[in-house]
């Protein structure tokens, strides 16, 4: 294995990500090549610097603040997403109400109109029949028929 090939594999070698056979090949080359061995040390050094960056603890207050923001965002998203559904439900209810009222109204309008009774001669219910008979008896009733009542029978 030449130096170019080894240097391409150095990162994976140092991270333990090579197959067993490749590891052996690279290790064997490094033991004989000062240049590649120095390069491997440099890669290890950079890895060490990053690995040893100071760890910061943001604290409990940070955690509580984070939680409240995360769950508040979740609640506001749910409220927002249910708004269209509420609007649709309300619109459906109003439409149903409107249709119901229209149906009731149209049903009432379809009923046959109450016929108004033409005023009949006579000033009260009781006198109506008498007036009718009198009209018949005098021959002024155009409908004809037997005399049912006379003024004396009353």
């Amino acid at each position, binding site marked *: 294995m030449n130096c170019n090939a080894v240097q*391409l594999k*150095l*990162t*994976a070698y140092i*991270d333990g*990500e090579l197959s067993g056979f490749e590891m052996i090949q690279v290790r064997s080359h490094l033991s004989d090549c000062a240049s590649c061995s*120095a*390069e491997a*040390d*440099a*890669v290890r*050094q*950079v*890895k060490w*610097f*990053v*690995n040893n*960056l*100071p*760890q*910061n*603890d*943001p604290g409990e207050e*940070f*955690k509580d603040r*984070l*939680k409240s*923001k*995360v*769950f508040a*965002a*979740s609640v506001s*998203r749910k409220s927002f997403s249910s708004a269209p559904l509420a609007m649709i439900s309300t619109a459906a209810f109003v439409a149903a109400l409107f249709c119901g009222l229209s149906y009731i109204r149209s049903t009432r309008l379809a009923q046959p109109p109450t016929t108004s009774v033409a005023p009949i001669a006579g000033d009260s219910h009781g006198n109506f029949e008498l007036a009718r008979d009198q009209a018949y008896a005098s021959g002024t009733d155009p409908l004809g028929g037997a005399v049912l009542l006379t003024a004396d029978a009353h």
Partner: protein
Amino acid sequence: MILSALFKERTASTDTTKQLFEGLLDKSYRPAYNLALRLTGNHAEAEDLLQETYIRAYRFFHRYDQALPFTNWLYRIMSNAHIDSMRRKGRIKTTSLEQPSQNGTSTLDVADTDASPDRELLCDMMGENVQQALMTMTPDFRTAVLLADVEGLAYEEIAEVMNTSVGTVRSRIHRGRKQLRTSLLKKAPEMYGGLINEL
């Protein structure tokens, strides 16, 4: 009555999910914060990134496979959120200049040079230098190096987090460490002169 029972059941299920997520957040927020800090370079942006990450994680919690490590799944979300943020701020410069690099690829690495001196610095001197050097790296390379060297993830795990292949992960880490070395030598040659870097 049936509706009432269904409502109670749904509420109980939501509470359980929330409790489970809270437990995972309690265990993961410290390392997640540190990763966010290394990715962004300052506390304010780290907090924003972390918040966005956990909001997305909670929103898609139903997709999380509990058999797998939560942090890996979380870091995937963070990696995507970080890239989204960088794109919005115009800090990602993509390039495909036809210039072969040493390992035979034909893409020129263009580092993120937005290492503003106004950024909040870490207290430790060496940590400061390394953090500043990290901020000069190409974002994808920086993410790969941090996941490998800070989080200790295997290449296969990093590939899953970054939604790419193991070969690409290896390449990003290799080139990322080279960028880091170059930057450290430029910044503080007396401190990092022991590094043998003959780029």
